[in-house]
């Protein structure tokens, strides 16, 4: 029976299972991060300051980032698993940088909204 994804399991050698398990836990931690972003987005939309365009923008930004995080989590898991099998260095977690900057901007925006209304 072939294992999914083929791009991972058709290359290299079986890595130490502990590394694969650690990779899996990192993937799951990213999924929880994306779920937290989604909860924040829905919460902000429901409980946000007034309901104008700006706080809709914050809510949408949080939800879109959440969806992007979940997709990039899987992409990163695949890339890491591949690197582990090929004995290559792990790929850089580029989504971490995007998330860091994005959350800082969203946080400042949300703070302005909450303080000024």
């Amino acid at each position: 029976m072939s294992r999914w994804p083929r791009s991972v399991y058709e290359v290299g050698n079986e890595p130490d299972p502990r590394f694969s398990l650690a990779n899996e836990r990192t993937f799951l931690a990213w999924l929880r991060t994306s779920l937290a972003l989604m909860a924040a987005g829905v919460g902000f939309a429901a409980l946000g300051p007034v309901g104008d365009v700006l706080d809709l923008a914050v809510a949408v930004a949080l939800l879109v980032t959440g969806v992007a995080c979940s997709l990039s989590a899987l992409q990163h898991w695949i890339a890491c698993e591949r690197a582990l099998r090929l004995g290559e260095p792990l790929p850089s977690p580029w989504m971490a940088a995007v998330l860091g900057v994005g959350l800082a901007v969203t946080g400042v925006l949300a703070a302005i909204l909450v303080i000024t209304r």
Partner: protein
Amino acid sequence: MRRHPWDPGLQVERTALAWMRTCLSMIVVALIAFRFAAHTSLAAALALAAVVVPMALVSLRLAWRRYRTSDANLTSGKRLPDGTLPLAVTIVTALTGALGLVYVLVDR
């Protein structure tokens, strides 16, 4: 039958717990969204809860099975399960976000 775990660092068990946390978070997020959406559109709220919660429960069940498989495979020198369940939970998570987005955009 009593036996030693495959890894003294309990990697398999910790991974299983990470799966549980993730699936439970999914249920919590769906219920939060349900709670908020129910105020304005009960139909949308029910749709969201009716789609995400059962999927999360199925994921929880499959994650438990994955733990049993991983443990059994590793103790008998076989390979870990593949990426099918990671793919499935990614889809459910992205779907949760998409439904949240629909609620936020439609709801005003």
